[in-house]
C-alpha cells in the first residue's frame, strides 16, 4: 500500500530533517505521527472545487537546503526595507529585522525553526493545536510532517505595533522541493498588529506549496492581516489561513489571490469569544489554464459575533475561479451577524466561474444575508469606453479595476490597497497577453 511506502521511504529523511533543525521531541514526534497518518486521512472537501487529481500530497524527500539570495534579484520586494521584515527564500532566511524597541517589549518575529528553539513553550502551545489541528485532514497532516519553513509572530499583552510587520516568503523552485510553510501569529490580550505577507516563486520546477497560517487573537486583540499570493504557474498550491478569536477580538483579512497555477485558498475563521469580529476581503484574478478555488468560511460561535465576507474575482482566458462563501451561525450564537457578497466577472467566453453562497444558520436571533453573482463584461460599457479611443485591453482593465475596486476601497490600509492594485495590474497584463 502507498501509505506504508511513503512512511518507510520518508521516515528517515523526516527524522534527519527534524534533527538538523534541533527540533524538540514534541515536534519530531508530531511530524512522524502525521507522516504515518496523512495518507489515510481524508482530503478536505470544498464545495464545487474538485482537486483530487492535483499533486498536493506527492511528497519530495525533505532535505535541508540553502538557497542563494541572488535568486531574488528579479523580484521587487518593495517593502523589504521596512523596520520589521522577514525575507525567506525556500528554507533560507535572507533578512530578518525587528525594531529593537519592539523586541524589548517582548515582541517576537522570527523564522519558525528559530522560534521552536528559542520559544519552545509558546510555539508548542499554539502550533497546530488551536486554530487548526494537525490531524484535521490529509493536507494539514502533510503540512505537519513536511514543514520546512515559516515564521512566528508574537505580540504580548497590551502592545500596539504601529509599523507594519512585513514578510516575503519566496518559494525556491529552481530545484525540486516542496514548499511547506507555516506562519503562526499570536496576538495576546489588548494587542494590535498589522502583518503583511507576500508569497511568490522563483524558478519553474513543478512543485507543490502547502501553506498554513494560524492566527490566534486573544481577548480584545486586533489583527490586520494582509496577504498577496503570487505562486507561480508550475506550483500547485494549498494556502490555508485559519483564525480563532477570543472575546472582542477582531481580525481583518485582506487577501489578493493572484497565483498563476492551480490553487486552493482556504480561509477559516472561528469566532469563539463573545463579540469577536472577522472581516474577510478577497480579490482574485485567474488567467491561463489555471483554477483557483477560494473557500471562505466564517463560523459564528460566540454571542454577538460578526462575520463579513466580501470577495470579488475576475476570470480571464481559459481559467476558472470558484468562490465559496460559508457563513455558519451555530446554535447559541445569539445576536450574531453573518453577511457575505461574492461576485465574479468573466472576461472571456472560455472562462468558468462560480459564486456559491452558503448560509448555515442554527440560531434564530441573528441577522444574515448574502449576495452572489457571476457576470460578463457589459458590451455597451466596453463600446462606450472604446468610443473614446481607449483600446480593448485598456478598456477591460478599467472595467476590471472598477469591479475589484469595490473590494479594494473597503480595505482601510492604503499601503495594502496600493500593493494589491499593483499586483492586480501585473496579473492582468500577463492574462491579456494571449488575447
Amino acid at each position, binding site marked *: 500500500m502507498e501509505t506504508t511506502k511513503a512512511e518507510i521511504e520518508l521516515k528517515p529523511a523526516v527524522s534527519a530533517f527534524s534533527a538538523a533543525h534541533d527540533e524538540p521531541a514534541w515536534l519530531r514526534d508530531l511530524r512522524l505521527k502525521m507522516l504515518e497518518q496523512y495518507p489515510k486521512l481524508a482530503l478536505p472537501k470544498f464545495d464545487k472545487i474538485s482537486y483530487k487529481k492535483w499533486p498536493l500530497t506527492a511528497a519530495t524527500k525533505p532535505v535541508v537546503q540553502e538557497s542563494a539570495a541572488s535568486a531574488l534579484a528579479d523580484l521587487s520586494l518593495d517593502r523589504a526595507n521596512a523596520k520589521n521584515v522577514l525575507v525567506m527564500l525556500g528554507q533560507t532566511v535572507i533578512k530578518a529585522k525587528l525594531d529593537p524597541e519592539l523586541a524589548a517589549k517582548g515582541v517576537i518575529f522570527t523564522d519558525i525553526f528559530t522560534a521552536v528553539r528559542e520559544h519552545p513553550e509558546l510555539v508548542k502551545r499554539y502550533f497546530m493545536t488551536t486554530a487548526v489541528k494537525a490531524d484535521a485532514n490529509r493536507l494539514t497532516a502533510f503540512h505537519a510532517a513536511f514543514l520546512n519553513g515559516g515564521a512566528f509572530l508574537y505580540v504580548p499583552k497590551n502592545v500596539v505595533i504601529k509599523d507594519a510587520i512585513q514578510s516575503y516568503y519566496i518559494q525556491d523552485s529552481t530545484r525540486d522541493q516542496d514548499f511547506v510553510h507555516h506562519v503562526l501569529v499570536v496576538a495576546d490580550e489588548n494587542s494590535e498588529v498589522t502583518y503583511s505577507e507576500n508569497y511568490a516563486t522563483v524558478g519553474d520546477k513543478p512543485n507543490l506549496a502547502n501553506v498554513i497560517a494560524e492566527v490566534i487573537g486573544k481577548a480584545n486583540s486586533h489583527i490586520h492581516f494582509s496577504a498577496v499570493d503570487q505562486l507561480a504557474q508550475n506550483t500547485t498550491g494549498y494556502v490555508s489561513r485559519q483564525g480563532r478569536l477570543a472575546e472582542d477580538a477582531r481580525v481583518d483579512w485582506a487577501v489578493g489571490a493572484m497565483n498563476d497555477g492551480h490553487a486552493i485558498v482556504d480561509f477559516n475563521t472561528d469566532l469563539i469569544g463573545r463579540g469577536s469580529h472577522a472581516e474577510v476581503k478577497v480579490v482574485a484574478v485567474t488567467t491561463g489554464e489555471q483554477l483557483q478555488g477560494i473557500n471562505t468560511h466564517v463560523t459564528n460561535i460566540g454571542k454577538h459575533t460578526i462575520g463579513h465576507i466580501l470577495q470579488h474575482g475576475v476570470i480571464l482566458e481559459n481559467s476558472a475561479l470558484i468562490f465559496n462563501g460559508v457563513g455558519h451561525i451555530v446554535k447559541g450564537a445569539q445576536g450574531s451577524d453573518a453577511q457575505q457578497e461574492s461576485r465574479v466577472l468573466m472576461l472571456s467566453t472560455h472562462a468558468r466561474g462560480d459564486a456559491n453562497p452558503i448560509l448555515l444558520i442554527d440560531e434564530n436571533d441573528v441577522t444574515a444575508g448574502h449576495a452572489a453573482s457571476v457576470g460578463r463584461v457589459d458590451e455597451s*460599457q466596453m463600446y462606450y469606453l472604446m468610443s*473614446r*479611443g481607449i483600446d480593448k485591453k485598456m478598456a477591460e482593465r478599467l472595467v476590471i479595476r472598477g469591479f475589484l475596486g469595490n473590494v479594494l476601497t473597503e480595505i482601510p490600509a492604503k499601503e495594502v490597497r496600493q500593493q494589491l492594485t499593483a499586483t492586480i495590474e501585473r496579473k492582468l497584463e500577463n492574462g491579456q497577453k494571449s488575447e
Partner: protein
Amino acid sequence: MSKLEVKNLHVAVMDEEDKGQPQQKEILKGVNLTINTGEIHAVMGPNGTGKSTLSQAIMGNPAYKVTEGDVLLDGKSLLKLPVDERARAGLFLAMQYPAEIAGITNVEFMRAAINARRPENDQIPVMDFMKLLDKNLALLDMSDDIVERYLNEGFSGGEKKRNEILQLMMIQPKFAILDEIDSGLDIDALKVVSKGVNALRGPEFGSLIITHYQRLLNYIIPDAVHIMMDGQIVESGGPDLAKKLEAEGYTGLRNDLGLDVKLTDEI
C-alpha cells in the same frame, strides 16, 4: 483640413422582435453626407428614422451592420476599423444614451482617453491634465465633484449630457457627432452646452448635430441642415430649413416634397 464622407450608406440591424430566426432589418437606405472641418451640420428627422443609427454606424458600433456604401475620413475608409481606432483617428460620438460604469471614476476615464491618443512614453502630465480639466469644468459650469464620481453612474439626464460635452472638450476630436445633446436639458444647460460646442468651433473642428429642436440651432448656428426620413436624407439646406420644419412639421415637409414615407406617430 479634414473631410468626413458618408457615401450611399446602407445599414441594417438584427431585428430581435421576430422570435426564431433573427431577421436583418434595413434602417439606412443610402445616406450621403460630406462634412469638412470648419463646418457644422445639423440632422433633423422624425423618431425612428435612423439618425442614431447613422451616428453609431459612423462611429463603428458593432451592432450596426453596413451592407453597402462607405464612410471615409480624408479619403480612407473607416469601415474595417474598430470603434477605438476610429476614435483615435479623430471621431467622437456624444451618445444619446451614455453608458453608466460603476468603479471607474470620470477623471480616470478621461485621462485614459487622452493618453490613448498619446505615445506610451509621452502620457499627459497630471498637472497639465488637471489644468485642462479645470478650464473646461469652469466653461461648462460644472462642479468639481462630478469628475470624482463614477462614470455617469447616477448622473441626472442633464449631467450625462454635460459630461459628454466635457469629454468632447477634453479630447478635442476632428469630428464630433452629437446625438440629441439637447434633449432633457433645461434652458441654462442648453446655453452651457452650446457654449462648449461653440468654443471648439474653428478650422480644425467639424460637427454633426442631431436634434429634434430648432431651438438648439439658435445657439449653435449650423452651416447646413439635413432632413432625414425613413433612412435617407430627403432635403438639405441652410439654417432656414430648420425654421421651416419648425413651422410645418414633418408631415407638411413630407407632403411638400411629395414623399411616400410613413411617420411613426401616424396611424
